[in-house]
């Protein structure tokens, strides 16, 4: 195990956990759960943000409430992501270093898919920081960074699908699908407001392409046996009793 501070912490936590239970680590479950919740919160954030641009408001949800919710839900998402990162770093099993959460392509565990998470996190960090400092920085700087939101969400989704242990669970797939539907719908509303028809067509085409690509990816990726290995799970972790390896739901016995 690494002797870096993160590593030592993991070591200690690992000893504690191994001593306390036999079976799935609570930290690993925390990481997975907070990841799913974070995705839902980010979905709501995007929807509320676009609702703001579309000037959608009602008696129940006046403009300031909607705008305040957008801000607070995004901060809650950040909180969940912080727990998500810390629990995956602290869990000794996958050996994910703290730096891998921020620096892409620096982890041994499913490097590509984890890096997507790091990239999404970096973007979200920039988004939130500039938004908190909104009144002190030039409006154009804030606006330019805020556009990253449209990139951040799909990257976060694919990170979840690729890294996530639970991607093949039906309820997770349904949840992912529902979130994707909400975001696609919101993006459609936003594109409808776009000035030029060129932007509109291009936007709708890329959104549709993304949805199709995601479905295809899920079908040939996480849903197929052997995904864990293909995704880059280190060989030492494959085939162990740890629930990090992919096991088709319903199958008992040693996983492959």
């Amino acid at each position, binding site marked *: 195990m690494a002797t870096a501070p993160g590593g030592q912490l993991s070591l200690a936590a690992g000893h504690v956990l191994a001593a306390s239970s036999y079976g799935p680590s609570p930290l690993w479950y925390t990481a997975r759960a907070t990841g799913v919740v974070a995705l839902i919160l980010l979905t709501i954030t995007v929807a509320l943000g676009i609702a703001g641009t579309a000037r959608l408001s009602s008696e129940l949800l*006046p*403009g*300031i409430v909607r705008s305040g919710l957008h801000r607070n839900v995004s901060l809650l998402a950040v909180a969940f992501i912080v727990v998500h990162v810390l629990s995956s770093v602290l869990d000794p099993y996958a050996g994910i270093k703290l730096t891998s959460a921020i620096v892409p392509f620096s982890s041994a565990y499913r490097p590509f898919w984890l890096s997507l998470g790091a990239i999404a996190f970096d973007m979200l960090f920039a988004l939130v920081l500039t938004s908190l400092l*909104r*009144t002190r920085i030039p409006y154009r700087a804030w606006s330019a960074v805020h556009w990253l939101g449209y990139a951040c969400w799909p990257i976060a989704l694919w990170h979840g699908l690729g890294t996530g242990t639970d991607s093949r669970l039906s309820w997770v797939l349904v949840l992912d699908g529902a979130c994707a539907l909400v975001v696609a719908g919101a993006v459609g509303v936003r594109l409808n407001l776009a000035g030029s028809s060129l932007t509109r067509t291009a936007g709708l085409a890329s959104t549709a392409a993304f949805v199709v690509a995601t479905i295809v990816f899920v079908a040939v990726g996480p849903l197929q046996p052997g995904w864990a290995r293909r995704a880059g799970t280190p060989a030492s972790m494959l085939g162990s009793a740890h629930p990090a390896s992919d096991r088709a739901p319903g199958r008992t016995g040693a996983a492959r």
Partner: protein
Amino acid sequence: MTMTLQVDPIACTGHGLCADLLPELIELDEWGYPILADSVPPDLVAHARRAVSACPALALRLVRRQHQLVPRHQSSARRARYEGDR
């Protein structure tokens, strides 16, 4: 020394959040754009600051004025006289 609210008319796109937060001083015209009162009484300054930071376009500003001798609309008319060479 009085505080006044000012709006940048080009940046403002009529979101209307300012009027939600400060109905005492900000009213929306029939097209959704803010009509501002002449000055901000001291007890509403905190609310005014909140309205300023709530504007999605950052079009609202709170400024200090030495003296508000001339009501807003008339001073605009005077400004209009000297501005603009056609």
